[in-house]
């Protein structure tokens, strides 16, 4: 199963379950959880089902395209079901079966793994799903987001697409993955990895990043205060990514860290409250 087949299968499976197929958000972010389709939709009472792929940037994980397992940018397939269906674990296993994983031939575990995102004021409880020793998904019942207690509870399932594809294709190097017939992951992504790693570790101007961070925080606060919750939240996403870039450059001092994390969280919390107060 090629990389894009995997995406199509999983997306199709959840679309058949009634989920909206959303598109990746057109901004940099560290995880699919930050996509407004998750961050805002888990708030409040309105039921929602959504699935999308989100390219996720983790500057500190950049390896210049030389590490077979670590990437500056990887792909998450993110699912939100609100409220969480009672047979959600079975549905999840069916989704794996749709990708060709026969659970009776593999060791499949739900191992405790609680999730917390301090910058989003969010946490949940759940598991990492481990397939023959490989963590392939994060399975979380959201308890809080934007500092707000949630009811109903949403379930979030995040598939690590590269890992799952490597497993299914039986390859040891992510760049050997078949993206589609005749085109490998290397061809599609290697240059991006090389250049992004060089940017993050060598070239990013930390003074500029730091200034941009402060600007994003200020701008976001101003916008949210004025009722423009979504554009304000976008500034929160920017700030969060800028923080990660600064961090990968080793430019966040220990005393600086809590202050910056708190600034991002304040913005996220304000956006969440603004969303609930809004029309």
């Amino acid at each position: 199963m090629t990389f894009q087949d995997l995406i199509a299968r999983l997306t199709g499976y959840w679309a058949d379950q009634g989920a909206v197929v959303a598109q990746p958000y057109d901004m940099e972010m560290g995880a699919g959880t930050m996509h407004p389709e998750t961050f805002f939709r888990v708030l409040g009472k309105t039921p929602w089902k959504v699935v999308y792929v989100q390219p996720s940037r983790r500057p500190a994980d950049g390896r210049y395209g030389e590490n077979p397992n670590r990437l500056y940018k990887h792909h998450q397939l993110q699912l939100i079901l609100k409220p969480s269906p009672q047979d959600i674990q079975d549905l999840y296993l069916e989704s794996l079966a749709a990708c060709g994983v026969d659970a009776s031939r593999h060791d499949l575990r739900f191992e405790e793994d609680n999730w917390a995102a301090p910058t989003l004021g969010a946490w949940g409880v759940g598991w990492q799903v481990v397939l023959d020793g490989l963590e392939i998904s994060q399975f979380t019942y959201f308890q809080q987001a934007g500092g707000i207690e949630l009811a109903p509870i949403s379930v979030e399932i995040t598939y690590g697409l590269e890992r799952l594809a490597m497993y299914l294709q039986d390859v040891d190097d992510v760049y050997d993955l078949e993206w589609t017939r005749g085109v490998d992951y290397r061809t599609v992504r290697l240059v991006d990895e090389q250049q992004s790693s060089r940017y993050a570790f060598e070239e990013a101007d930390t003074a500029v990043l730091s200034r941009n961070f402060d600007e994003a925080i200020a701008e976001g606060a101003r916008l949210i205060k004025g009722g423009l919750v979504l554009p304000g939240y976008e500034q929160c996403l920017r700030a969060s990514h800028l923080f990660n870039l600064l961090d990968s450059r080793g430019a966040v001092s220990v005393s600086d860290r809590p202050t910056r994390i708190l600034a991002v969280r304040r913005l996220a919390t304000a956006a969440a409250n603004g969303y609930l107060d809004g029309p």
Partner: protein
Amino acid sequence: MSGKELLIEIGCEEIPADWVAGLAKGFETAVAEGLDRERLSAETIGSCCTPRRLVVHGAGIPESQPDQVREVLGPPWRVARDEGGRWSRAAAGFARKQGIEEADFDERLQPVETSRGQYLGVRQVAPGKPAIRILPGILEDALRAVPLPKAMNWDASIGEKAFAFARPIRWIAALLGEEVISFRIEVNGGAPVVAGNRSYGHRSRTAVDGEVPGASFSVASLRSLTEGLRRRFVVLDGEERKGRLLEALGRCENEAGESAEVGDAADVHKDLVEYPGAVLGRFPNEFLSLPKEIRDTVLIHHQKYFPFPTKPLFVAVTNLPDDPEGHVRRGAGRVVVARLRDARFFWDEDRKVPLAETRPRLAGVVFHRQLGSFSEKADRMEDLAAWIAASTGADAAAASHAAGLSKCDLTGNLVGEFASLQGLAGGLLLREEGVPETVWRAVYDHYRPAGLDGDLPRDPEGAAVSLADRADTLAGLFLAGEEPSGSGDPFALRRAALSIIRVLRDAPADYPEPRNGWPSPEALLNRALDGYHPGDAVRAVVAGKLAAFVNDRLPHAFVGPSTPRGVVNAVLATRDWSHAVADTWQRIRDLATAVISGDYATLAEASRRVRRILPPEIREGRGAGLRRKLLAEAAEQQLCDRLEEVEAEVERRFAESSYFPAFQALATLSPSIATFFDDVLVMAEDPAVRANRLALLARLDALFSEVGDLGQIEASAS
């Protein structure tokens, strides 16, 4: 056995492995208490569990509560009848309220004697309710009473009240005999979970012909549940799962030709799976060049696999009985290789720069916001470790060198990725660089011991670094006002204090050379306080708090199976943090031994008695004014003679720190003391004789006080 069988199975999504057993036990206790409270006590009750189910089973549950008879009191008896001898209006009103017809008044209305006089009363019989109607309430209360390490919301409620649990509950089987207990959990936005008589086996395996894996099956009893589950690849009993796990592990070990390093991990693993199996995995030989500590961290901490001592193999526990196509073995091997490759990358990166050259980076790692960085901490530790090592006669230069480098690995890649390698990583890197063994081992070992348990550092220089690290942390955080309060101890200072006490307690025995003294906790922590240059006033306050903190922890380090609390308290009455811990420990152990062989019950009783009798000013005189010629009676003369002998013996033995013979000698006083109290009247009429007898007792008390407070020794310990 009469009564009915109770079976409750709470089917859950996977409960965290280290909670499962505790939750099952907690549920069992809560159900048992509920049954007792409702007068439906089971003859036997028990529980078992897997990650996906908590099961409580009881036998001999009565079918209904016993009837309850109670006396209901009405008005005083004297107003129960009117002048005509008929039931008064008050009596009739009360009786009707109790549902008694007038025709039955004479039969049912009776006088009842109470402490306040005679009253009109009726005996009311409340018929017991059937157990099947009481059990829903018991079940709800019990589910709510299960102690959860962390509760999760899942939109559930019982009755009208929200209900959180460890993980969502997906099915409930609840039977009393053959009858289903009526119980349901509402789920907002979904179907309720309704108790029934069905259970579920393994998600993906079944041995039942024609049945789809994961399908439900009906249960009628614990036995049918256990057997039904077994045919569907679920072993309900935890100990049986552990046994199967160890068998599967044994097969892997046979194949490997070596024993795996399992420790006590089988206990956790048995609750990670419902049907344990094991596969033997392999990684390429090239990774054998990676230090074993790093390999094991990958295998154990990240993958929960069992490593082998020398071979490039590991065991993975599975939730399947077999792996016919080798999927699990290959998958596990691939993950391990990826992880090991990462670890080797970090190891190679860290080795590019000598550890000492990374020390300036510590300036960027905050130790505590008021106390500066780890760079400053390392500087203070250098001085402190050198002082400790010097005072014991160990290699001060090596200890200081190690202390200065001990925190450098915090900025390295390995510790960044595998936090549990701190200390070890630095030690391994220094070993690679070829620094002397004493130095790299001191860095490697300096997080030992973890409180009262675990090994001490291998060398006295390592012990010096360990003590320096903990003492510096304790002194600094107390100066910063971060002393623990109640259950809050975010910096693990209690454990730090216990680690210090533990090292000082065992160091002289563990490190026969050198033979100089190890500092007392007081000397150590004062020296550590010096490193922060506090003002005199602050210093005095903090030293006082540290003294109380350490003194409070001393008993924890001493009380044990062969050193009872009474003996420990007896010695600690006169010994605290200002004394050498090992010497205190020697006294406690010797006294505990002496108490077993000698008559310390008499001594303890005498000590308590003497302290009751003696006025404080006489006690403080320690028998100074004792005059031999005023001792008139044989018993007091004899006690005085024996006392002098034993005093001399105790003094001689104490001088050579040989406590056991001293304590034995002390016990030989018992007969003389007993005779003295039998024969001699201390409070004699003649004031001179009385004063002299009190002086004799004061002298005895002074001798006792050399040991401590003998009155603390419990009678049972002697």
